[in-house]
């Protein structure tokens, strides 16, 4: 990025902020809290997704086992008849 462009962006940024860059401590704290909450929620969402996938996997695999077991059970019966 050319220096002149950054200088311009800096000026525009200040203009848009009315040259008031001061942030009260409380406001900064509030944003920090908000940020942590956001991240915690992201973590939870990820866990939920992972859990949902895990459950799907589990639901899929016992069914597979059952089929296998049924097949295994049937086989001896067929042999005995």
């Amino acid at each position, binding site marked *: 990025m050319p220096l002149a462009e950054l200088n311009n962006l800096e000026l525009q940024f200040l203009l848009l902020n009315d040259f008031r860059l*001061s942030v009260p401590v409380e406001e900064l704290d509030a944003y920090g809290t908000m940020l942590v909450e956001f*991240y915690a929620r992201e973590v939870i969402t990820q*866990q939920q997704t992972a859990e949902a996938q895990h459950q799907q996997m589990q639901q899929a695999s016992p069914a597979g086992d059952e089929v296998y077991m049924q097949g295994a059970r049937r086989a001896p019966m067929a042999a005995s008849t």
Partner: protein
Amino acid sequence: MGSLVVSQVAPSLGHQHAYHHIMVGGDAQHNESETPTRSTTQRTQSSQSQASAHAATIPDRPPSPPLQPTETPADVRPAAGSRQPSHLSQHHHGFDQSGFPLSSDPRGLHSSPSSPRLGPTHRSTTSLGASEASSPSRLKVRDLAHIQSFASQEYLARPRLAGRILEAGRQYEISSMPVTDIIEMVAGLLTRITTTNDRQHENIHRPGTPQDGGSIGSQSSCVLAFHGKNVPSITILSYLSRIHKYCPTTYEVFLSLLVYFDRMTDNFNKRFLQKATRASGSDSSDSHASLDTLTEQNVNDEPQSSKTDENDDNDPGQFFVVDSYNIHRLVIAGVTCASKFFSDVFYTNSRYAKASSQFPIVFI
């Protein structure tokens, strides 16, 4: 909601100047009743609710409630009210001149007398590390792993309430976290915001094509300065990390970026609304359009509903929205400003320019 109001009000504006003021008064009060809860964290929160809406597509998630958005604004509101005194009083004054009811801007009434905030300037230049960490509801966060651990603890304890797990009113003290962790969180939030806003944008035209330059004039060019033609390929996380790598600074700089972005969008869109109001005289429908755009909720509905009258000129594409096209420029400009403001040690602009020089620059 707003778009509905717009579609009802807008087409008839031409012949209803008789009780125009009544409509203005009512709508303004209505607006005021909903703005305070959204004041400074408007965009951020809307992105959170968007985020929750997004997360709601995950099958197992309980119907996402409006996640805690009542506590953060409560914290922020006093500051929000008092930190924009001159702007609000200017607003207020404007309303006065055009004969609007005084009650239409209650915030102006109680916040206008306050002086420029020199005190906070001084305070916020000092480190926040020692700031009142004694409160019992205040949790000192060590790092990301700490957040992960307490988030999953709460989640395991009450999985059904996952949306609300975070105790209301608890504050988190992040000053002792590594800056890189804070960068990661900021980047995550900004990424979520931009992707959400991009999605909202998709159906309406880009702000890169100004249809009505006269309406907002130089303000518009301020915003357009940040708008790139292409989305830089570098992610926000690696961009922030890169800036931090070459120009290391404190966490306040990155955190304050969020504050500034919120203020900028607020200020700009309010000002835009004011000018549009004066230009067209169709105050009520305009104010609704702006609120909707600010909250990023109903942007998609705007084009259809507002095509019916002169509001077309002031379409939502003109609003200042943080998206993937301007986020990188906003970030570098913000870091440049904020590090000068917050730290005694800062770098030259050419160093920042170099640090951010990795993406191609295409200007409008």
